[in-house]
């Protein structure tokens, strides 16, 4: 695949998303803007997972844990700030915040920390065991969120209004979209840098040949763990953004369906393609909208479509696009 052509597809994707949101704004279609925002957020979550799954070969079926924890960090901080109950009294009193600039780093930190814990244990296993243990950890947190009543339990936790960002009216759909869009750009750039760095080289090599990477003196476990932590942090940021989009967070963001969906974005778009998750998330959400307009049972058709993709286009959308572009160009 030629680099310039795939760059053209990437540019088209990202410009398309921006253009769609801006058009929707001009035409006063807030619903479309929300859809575009959702795409941007899910793409960030997918980019996070792609780093572990696509580049590192770590098939995590538990990324809902990071997405959900990011979401809950956002919800919990905001709810404490609004009801003035201190979140902690020691070592200093902290009563939450409604500033996105504070919420994001905390969400990233907490979900990275969780990824460190989960990864440290899970990476002792490989193959199916890894898939299942990551799933199990996510379920553990899911059930905890359901049965822990302080933050709403099964009913979830509303945050009522969006958190604030200096100089921006976050409740205006297009302005919140732009925040998410810029974060998407930053995530994409960051990821492309990481993938091409020494660390990225070692990570991709470790996916293909553990023995070889070990034999040149690189600690594969450490490389994978660090990748898993970064991956969890990025996905956690997406979770925080998602809470603000909905002004609500509930245990459903922690459910294994969420893990499955993030995985679908990655695979639908094309594993280990930098822009794959964006393509996948866009396709998924547009499909949801289009199919949902035809039938209440749209998930059935989505399932059928996914099956076709897995069976007949295993390289995903980006793979197919690049291939057809090449054969026609």
């Amino acid at each position, binding site marked *: 695949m030629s680099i310039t052509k795939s760059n053209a597809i990437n540019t088209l994707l990202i410009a398309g998303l921006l253009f769609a949101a801006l058009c929707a704004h001009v035409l006063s279609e807030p619903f479309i803007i929300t859809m575009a925002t959702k795409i941007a957020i899910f793409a960030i979550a997918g980019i996070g997972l792609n780093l572990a*799954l696509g580049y590192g070969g770590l*098939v995590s*079926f538990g990324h809902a844990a990071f997405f959900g924890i990011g979401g809950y960090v956002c919800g919990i901080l905001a709810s404490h700030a609004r009801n003035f109950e201190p979140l902690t009294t020691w070592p200093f009193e902290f009563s939450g915040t409604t500033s996105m600039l504070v919420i994001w780093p905390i969400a990233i930190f907490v979900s990275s920390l969780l990824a460190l814990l989960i990864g440290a*244990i*899970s990476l*002792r*296993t*490989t*193959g*199916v*065991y890894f*898939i*299942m*243990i990551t*799933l*199990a*950890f996510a*379920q*553990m947190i899911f*059930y*905890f969120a*359901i*049965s*822990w*009543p302080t933050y709403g339990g099964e009913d979830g936790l509303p945050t009522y209004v969006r958190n604030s960002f200096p100089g921006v009216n976050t409740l205006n759909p297009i302005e919140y979209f732009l925040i998410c869009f810029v974060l998407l750009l930053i995530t994409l750039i960051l990821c492309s840098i990481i993938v091409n760095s020494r660390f990225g080289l070692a990570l991709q090599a470790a996916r293909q040949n553990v023995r070889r990477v070990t034999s040149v003196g690189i600690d594969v476990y450490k490389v994978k763990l660090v990748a898993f932590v970064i991956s969890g942090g990025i996905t956690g940021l997406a979770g925080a953004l998602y809470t603000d989009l909905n002004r609500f967070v509930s245990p459903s963001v922690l459910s*294994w369906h969420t893990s*499955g969906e993030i*995985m*679908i974005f990655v*695979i639908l778009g094309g*594993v280990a393609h930098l822009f794959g998750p964006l393509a996948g998330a866009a396709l998924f959400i547009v499909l949801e909208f289009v199919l949902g307009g035809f039938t209440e*049972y*749209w*998930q*059935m058709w*989505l*399932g*059928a*479509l*996914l*099956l076709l993709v*897995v*069976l007949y286009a*295993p390289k995903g959308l980006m793979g197919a696009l690049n291939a057809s572009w090449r054969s026609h160009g």
Partner: protein
Amino acid sequence: MTTTLIIEQVLNGLQFGVMLFLMASGLTLVFGVMGLINLAHGSLYMVGAFACAAVAAATGSYWLGLAASLVVAAMAGAIVELLIIRKLYSRGHLDQVLATFALILVFSEGTRWLFGSFPLYLNVPEILSGSVELPGGIHYSLFRLLIIVTGALIALFLLALIHKTRLGIQIRAGESDREMISALGVNIDRLYTIVFALGAALAGLAGAMVGSLQSVQVGMGEPVLILAFVVIVIGGIGSIKGALVGAVLVGLVDTLGRFLLPELFAIFMDPASAKAIGSALASMLIYMVMAGVLFFRPTGLFGLNA
């Protein structure tokens, strides 16, 4: 808290474990023999439950419903295997997870389309609905007891099948060496379809029985599926014996944890928070057990190298 209550909870745990074994045995066979992760196994459980409910409602016979759960789930399993699953054996785990996740969507929404979103209820026949008195004066539901016995019999049947019969030899050979077994002249495609259908039938039966205790509804297979995965991962993937041990362990730990943990916390806490913390922890307990097992034995209790 009385001894009677504890024994009753232990029996409930066993009954739950036995149900999990019916699910887990199919899952672990399919993985052991074909190397396939089948997330759609829970859908076959749901298919069995709906088949039982539909046939029982149409004919008025619960027994026909139970038979239908076996037959319909086996048929659904065979059809899915022939049409889709077969193409996935040579693929990586990632493709398998995604394709079978997609199958869940198709099955769940398809069932919702056919039967609607409201739960269906099954009436257990008169003779099974009472309770029996066990030695020691404990009264226990006859139907639950029957589930335990049925599950135990199926476990014995499966162990005998795997270790004593020709089919079992083929299955075990298939686990270790696909090429050898096809060189021996065994029709490997047919063997795979049979194994898959067998696992599906057991899942369907489990679905029908649990559906009789609770309710029959779309999505009922998913929580059970994940527990079944926990079971086979604890037991070691591919091992029927591991599935049995893991299922009973998970059944007991989960049931007793939900019962005992709140009581335990109540010793040193006020009742309300003891109940909250206790039940929150109890719902996480089996996952902690699983993480613990994998920490010390990364391939499960009875697993070979992954």
